[in-house]
C-alpha cells in the first residue's frame, strides 16, 4: 500500500463504477423490493401501501417449500461434487508437462466458453429415453426398457456439475499457481508420501481457491435457470424457473418479485455465513494474510 497523494483519490477512481452500480443495480433492486412489498386491493388493483402479504403467502405454501428445498439440495450436491471432481483435476493439470498441460487445459476449460444452453442440450441428448445412456444400459443388460434421466434430479445434478466444475478447476488452478513448488519438493525430499504431501502441504495452500470455487458453484447452481428449465422441465421446478413462470406464465409479477427477493436473501445468507465460517477457521489455523482472503471473498 502506497502513501496516497490525495485523500480523495481512491474515491474518485472508484466513483464511476460505484455511481454506475447505484443507478443500475441499487435502483432496480430497490424497485423490485418495493414491488414485492406492494399490497394490492383485490377488487380494484390499486396501490394501498406496503405489506408482507406476498411473503406470507409464499412462506406458508407447501408448494413453494418444496421448490426451495429442492433448490437448496440441488445446489449443495452440485457444489460438493464440483469440489470433489474439480480439485484433483486442477492438481493433476498443474503437474502435467508442457504440451499436455496446455492441451488438456483447453479440453477442460474450453467448454467453459461454450454456452450453457448448448451444453445442457448435449445432456438432454445423452440422458433422454432414446439417448446414449439408455442405449448403453440396455445393451449391457442393466436395464429392461428405455431409461431416461430427463426430468429427474440426478439428470439435473449431472448437467449442472458439468456446467459448473470448470469454475472450481480454474479457481483451484489459480491458487496452485501461487504455491511455491519448492515446498512440495522439500516435503518429498524429507520422505513424505504423495498423499501426505497433498494433504499437509498442498491442500492448506489451496483452501482459498477451493472455497471460492465451491461458493461460486453453489451460488451459480442456486441461480441456474437454463439447466433446470431444460432438464428439469415443468415437473422439477426450482426457484429460478418458478420466478420465470410467475413473470411469463401466470403473469403474477408480485409473486415473481417476492420469490426473486427470497432467493436473493437466501443466497446472500448462505454464501456470507459460509465465508465467515471458513474465514474464521482458516485465519485461526494458518494465519493467512488478509490480502489472500480479500481475493477470495466476492
Amino acid at each position, binding site marked *: 500500500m502506497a502513501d496516497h497523494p490525495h485523500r480523495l483519490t481512491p474515491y474518485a477512481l472508484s466513483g464511476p463504477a460505484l455511481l*454506475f452500480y447505484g443507478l443500475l443495480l441499487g435502483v432496480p433492486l430497490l424497485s423490485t423490493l418495493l414491488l414485492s412489498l406492494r399490497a394490492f386491493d383485490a377488487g380494484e388493483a390499486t396501490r394501498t401501501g406496503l405489506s408482507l402479504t406476498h411473503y406470507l403467502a409464499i412462506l406458508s405454501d407447501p408448494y413453494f417449500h418444496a421448490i426451495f428445498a429442492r433448490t437448496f439440495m440441488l445446489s449443495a450436491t452440485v457444489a460438493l461434487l464440483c469440489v470433489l471432481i474439480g480439485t484433483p483435476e486442477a492438481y493433476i493439470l498443474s503437474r502435467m508437462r508442457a504440451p499436455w498441460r496446455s492441451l488438456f487445459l483447453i479440453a477442460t476449460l474450453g*467448454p467453459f466458453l461454450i454456452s450453457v444452453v448448448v451444453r445442457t442440450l448435449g445432456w438432454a441428448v445423452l440422458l433422454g429415453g432414446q439417448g446414449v445412456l439408455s442405449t448403453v444400459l440396455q445393451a449391457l443388460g442393466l436395464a429392461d426398457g428405455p431409461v431416461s434421466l430427463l426430468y429427474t434430479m440426478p439428470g439435473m445434478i449431472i448437467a449442472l456439475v458439468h456446467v459448473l466444475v470448470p469454475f472450481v478447476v480454474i479457481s483451484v488452478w489459480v491458487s496452485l499457481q501461487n504455491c511455491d*513448488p519448492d515446498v512440495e519438493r522439500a516435503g518429498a525430499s524429507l520422505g513424505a508420501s504423495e498423499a501426505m504431501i497433498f494433504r499437509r502441504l498442498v491442500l492448506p495452500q489451496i483452501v482459498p481457491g477451493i472455497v471460492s470455487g465451491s461458493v461460486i458453484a453453489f451460488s451459480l447452481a442456486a441461480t441456474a435457470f437454463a439447466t433446470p428449465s431444460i432438464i428439469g422441465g415443468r415437473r422439477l421446478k426450482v426457484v429460478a424457473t418458478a420466478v420465470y413462470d410467475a413473470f411469463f406464465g401466470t403473469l403474477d409479477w408480485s409473486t415473481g418479485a417476492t420469490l426473486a427477493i427470497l*432467493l436473493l436473501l437466501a443466497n446472500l445468507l448462505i*454464501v456470507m455465513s459460509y465465508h465467515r465460517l471458513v474465514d474464521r477457521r482458516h485465519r485461526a489455523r494458518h494465519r493467512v494474510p488478509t490480502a489472500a482472503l480479500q481475493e477470495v471473498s466476492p
Partner: protein
Amino acid sequence: MRRNGLLAWGFHGLFVAFIAAPLIAIVLVSFTGKGYLSMPFDGASLRWYRALLTAPEFGAALRVSLVLGVCSASIALVLAVPAALALSRWSFPGHATVQGILMSPLLIPNVVLGVAFLRFFTDLGLSGTLLGLVCAHVVVVMPYALRLSLAATGGFDLALEQAALSLGASAFTAFRRVTLRLLLPGLASGWILAFIHSFDELTMSTFIASPSLTPLPVRLYLRIEDSIDPMVAAVSTLMIVGALALVIALDRLYGLDRIFAGRP
C-alpha cells in the same frame, strides 16, 4: 515439476470424457437426416445446416450477442480498472465496502437481476433496447473484469512506476508506458472473461430481450422450449466450433493459463 501417477491419469481420462461427452453428442446429432434428435449412424446428412440458411433469426442473434459482448466488456473494464488501482494501492476508509459492493453482482442471482431490470427498464422505456441490454450486461460482467484487474494491479511492483517517475517521466507517461503496459495481459484476460460471460448470459437476458433484439443463447433457449429439433443441434455445433476456434486463438496469443490465472 513432479509427475502424475497412473491413478491420476485415469481420473483425468474420466474427467475429460465427462467434459467432452455432451459436446460430442450434440455434434453427432446435428448431422442426422431425420426430423428428430437421433444419432446419424445410418448415414450423415447436412439437412439441418441447409435448413439453418433459411432461418436468418440465428444470424441476427449472433450479431446482437457479439455487439453486446464487446460493448459490455469494454465498458466494464473502463469502470473496473481505476477502481482496481484504487483498491490495490491504498487502504482508505470504506475500502472493504467499496470492494464488496463492486463484487456484489456475483451474489445476486441472475434471475433476480432479470426481474429487477425488466421492471426498471419497463418504467424507463428502455425495455428491449440495446442500451438497456448493454447496461444490464455491464453489471453482470463487472465482477469478472474487476477480479482479473485486481489480480493484475495487486501483483504490480510499484517500484517500477516509482523508478520511471524518478527518471523524469510525468505521472501520465509513467502510467501509460510502464504501469498500463505491465498490466495489459491481466486486463486483456479481464476483458475476455467479461466478454465470455456476456456472450454466455442467458438467464437475465431472457427477461429483458425483445423479439427484435434477442441474443444468441436466448434465441436458442426459446427455440428449445418450443421444440427440440436437430436445427438447434446444428446451431449448437457451430457455437462449439466458434468457441473452440476462440480457445485455440487465445492459447496461441496469450497462453490459456495466463488468461485464466490472470497472471502477467
